């Protein structure tokens, strides 16, 4: 996975935002996944646009973090969520 990938939440995944956190549930597998403030913001940006690169650029302005660290974190999170069926690649 790279910054150039586009992701979306597939059908069959329920989400609920609670304050600064988000919970996702894969309705097919029964897998729950919790996102903290940073993860929730990432998901919110993906829902708007889908492009990891756009989310990365936006979040660099909002969080005090080095670009390469944020990139690694977002890609790691994306892969973790994708492997649980909570995100899927959009061609």
């Amino acid at each position: 996975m790279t910054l150039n990938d586009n992701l979306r939440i597939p059908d069959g995944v329920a989400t609920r935002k609670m304050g600064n956190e988000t919970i996702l549930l894969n309705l097919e597998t029964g897998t729950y996944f919790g996102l903290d403030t940073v993860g929730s913001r990432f998901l919110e940006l993906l829902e708007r646009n889908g492009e990891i690169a756009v989310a990365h650029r936006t979040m660099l302005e909002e969080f005090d973090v080095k670009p390469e660290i944020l990139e690694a974190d977002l890609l790691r999170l994306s892969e973790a969520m994708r492997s649980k069926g909570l995100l899927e690649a959009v061609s």
Partner: protein
Amino acid sequence: MSLTHAYRICDLALASNIPLPELTPAKVFAVECRFELLPPGNPSPGNFVWFHHWTFEEDNEEEEGAKKAWVHFARTGDGYLLRFPSCGDFFLSADAEKIQCRPLPGIPEVTVRHLFLDQVIPLVLSRREPIVLHASAVLTAHGVIAFAGKSGQGKSTLAASFVQKGCALVSDDCLVLRAEHGSWTALPSYPGVRLWPSTAEELLREDTHTADVAHYTIKRRVSDTDLLPFANSPAPMRKLFFLADDTSAVSIERLSPGRAFMALVEFAYNLDIQDAAFLRSQFEAVGQLTADVPAYAIHYPREFALLPAVRETILNHLEEDRDHDTE
């Protein structure tokens, strides 16, 4: 099938072909669930679709696949099968309104009743109510407080401790919560708690009558409502406490909504984890409960001598919040 024994548990009208002395008999006009104990026999053969299992919580195997299963869940042609490998089979109709048990030969009836009341009924209830928690609960002057945690963490001990000091028992380990008009109500389960002998000796009078729970456990069932008063009607749900570490001091930590949600899911009963429609309704209900009822982690020392201090801390916490709410 002659169902001559009627009861009510968590607002469920139940009829049974055997006495269930753990429950209080009730006049039931419309039976919602029927239980039949069948003659003993070997495990039912058949092509079942096994889709889930629970393992023993005290199993220290790291590999999930190596853990010993406590109960297996399967779909049958017209419902579900819950197989307790060392005890017997429970067959549930798809709507969970009919339950039959075929115990293995030699399994005592007290064990069947324990499995039915304390393992199967919570799962039956989970088909009717989106929130059924593995939690004890007591009715205090400020409303119902619940203690959720894994087996052996002290839910029953804490609940019994509160009840001895003037609260009423709402549940020992199956708590049904129902949303009504923007708030949450706890439904009383059935009287009695199950305690380790050492706990019963420590908390109760020496001459307290206790009964067997099941043939495979030394836990004792204490059902004397003069000793442990029971809440006979639903009451407002006030706070949820998730039992955390055995620590040297008592501390209460408010959980963020996300942490509270995940904790609730961990302790919520669900008969069919592959039923997407039910999962969605439970997801929404847990989300609403998280928003409406505050949840805390409570760390405390697991020492009998310190139970009064733990109780006091929790009650002071409730009192402080009440004062805060009225400002």
